[in-house]
């Protein structure tokens, strides 16, 4: 049986069902218990599982992640919440220096099966330090898996896969999608594997590589383009690390043109890596430049509404770039 629920309800359901299924799963984070989380992603879980499995923590992101790492080394399956992606910096030492390297530096002696749920993303007028989509900071680090779903179905299935994964997974939840995205989600247990990208729309003329909050605008753009006789294939890179090269390259070989669309800043971003992969591995198949439509290189998302809007990539920008590329 499945029914239509929001992305945040899917997150909550995944946590609840996995805690019922596996005693080793526990949650820790700021305001996740009594308050049920700033966005209510963990609402009701304290009442259901008690304070021994839903731990409200001090504002100490480094210690939150480290506590997860330490407990995972002895068999627990902690799920830590970072309230806003912007607040993750105090924990980067533990994520990058400890979690990502633990398996390697102990030569497999220890693994680090932690899940870090991170609420990210802009576009809501939340300002400089409550809006960043910073997955690229971590995608540089081998040893980490990074996912960012854009549907409720994937949110539940990938969160379950993340918790069961033997390695550290950073699970980005885009706050603008929490309640705007609603789709069919099975009531029971299932996983969506970490790794494979999803072909969301097939097309012959160009490939749009996107993820997160710009998946739906890219699909809207593709519908728009179709009316102008340009058929775009839309691939959602649900897993940013490891990247699904096979699906990406297969599409590029078919369409010969690549448009990369993401919310985050441009320079040294996920798009740059995607472009490099396509250039290195499908150069002969290309029939036009690899084009990026991304957030601008501003240090953080400005507060004032006109600036906030100017910062965002929208459907029109994607359509314009695609038309230009298709004309090559």
């Amino acid at each position, binding site marked *: 049986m499945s029914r239509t629920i929001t992305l945040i309800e899917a997150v909550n359901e995944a946590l609840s069902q996995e805690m019922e299924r596996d005693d080793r799963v526990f949650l820790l984070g700021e305001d996740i218990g009594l308050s049920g989380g700033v966005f209510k992603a963990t609402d009701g879980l304290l009442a259901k599982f008690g304070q021994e499995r839903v731990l409200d923590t001090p504002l100490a992101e480094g*210690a939150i992640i480290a506590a997860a790492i330490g407990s995972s080394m*002895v068999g627990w399956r902690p799920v830590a919440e970072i309230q806003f992606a912007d607040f993750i910096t105090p924990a980067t030492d533990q994520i990058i220096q400890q979690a990502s390297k633990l398996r390697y530096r102990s030569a497999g002696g220890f693994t680090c099966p932690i899940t870090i749920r991170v609420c990210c993303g802009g576009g809501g007028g939340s300002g400089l330090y409550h809006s960043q989509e910073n997955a690229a900071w971590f995608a540089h680090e081998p*040893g980490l898996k990074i996912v960012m779903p854009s549907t409720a179905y994937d949110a539940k299935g990938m969160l379950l896969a993340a918790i069961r994964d033997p390695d550290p997974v950073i699970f980005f939840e885009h706050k603008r999608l929490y309640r705007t995205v609603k789709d069919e989600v099975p009531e029971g247990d299932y996983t969506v594997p970490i790794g494979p990208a999803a072909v969301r729309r097939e097309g012959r003329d160009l490939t749009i590589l996107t993820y997160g909050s710009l998946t739906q605008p890219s699909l809207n753009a593709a519908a728009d383009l179709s009316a102008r006789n340009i058929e775009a294939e839309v691939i959602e890179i649900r897993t940013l*690390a490891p990247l699904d090269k096979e699906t990406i390259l297969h599409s590029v070989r078919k369409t010969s043109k690549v448009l990369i669309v993401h919310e985050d800043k441009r320079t040294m971003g996920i798009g740059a890596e995607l472009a490099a992969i396509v250039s290195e591995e499908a150069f002969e198949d290309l029939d036009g430049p690899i084009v990026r439509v991304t957030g601008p290189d501003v240090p953080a998302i400005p507060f004032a509404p006109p600036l906030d809007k100017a910062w965002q990539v929208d459907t029109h920008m994607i359509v314009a770039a695609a038309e230009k590329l298709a004309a090559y």
Partner: protein
Amino acid sequence: MSVTTMPERPPVTPEHAVFLLREMLRIRRFEEKAAEMYSLGKIHGFLHLYIGEEATGVGSMQAFTPDDAIVATYREHGHALARGMPARVLMAEMYGKVTGCSHGHGGSMHFFDTNRRFYGGYAIVGGGLPIAIGLALADQMQNRQAITACYFGDGAVAEGEFHESLNLAALWKLPVVFLCENNLYAMGTALERHQAQTDISRKAAVYGLSASAVDGMDVLAVEAATREAAASVRGGKGPYLLELRTYRFRAHSMADPDLYRTKEEIAEWKKRDPIVLFQNRLRESGMLTDEIVARIEAEVGDEIGQAVQFAEESPREPVEDLLKEVGGQNRS
């Protein structure tokens, strides 16, 4: 905070006394040999010696059972040996050989041993402190009786993670013994140049931890103080901060010219060499003879010699292992 000088020491059996001496000598001779091999180019990278601090690791480790978890520092050869890791796998690790405890991935600063609950050396100063919180939390959630011993130096107390960890340990009443090996220098910066409050054990009070400080050059005093701390933690009284006041006789690392302290200061501390002090006391009490010392030295020499031979003869880590155990991402 007064330093426990232990004028009235608890009775110690001759066997235990000789064991402690032997453990300290194993570490001293192991590291002297490591320094020699470093000078010969057999060991590369950074090498941080524990020489002078043997009483802190050996004395304190007696208070922990095989079920307890150990989190160490980057100056962790002594902790690893005192925990029972074989000298040969440590030497091989320092040689970068595949027979090392981390298959040569780690080297001197990154010893691990799953079987002995030795959760790593940590080359990021302070990095191990909050991980100890996680280990203790896990043990507590499992209703295990185990406690976590978390070693760090005086330099680590300047890190935010020290304070986050003490707060969380006290807040959640976690079974952790925090062991600060205060050797008076954060690399080349003297304690009074990096700490506003130089009495480290006093930092525990604001978090509500029990705390004490002990002469880290006196192995029996360290053992007694750590047993007391561990008993307090095992008794459910919450975490404990024990400051072990010690001194390293060698430079921070083999690459350090040691220009930030005087020769006189080092010479003064060497008069309190923990091994010499302990040997003298044992001789005075009749527990030690020249024959026993000669026998221990010979046995330790054999063990270290065999460790070097094992490391020398072991194969290099194969380059095919470069991507082994990366985990997470298969990027090739």
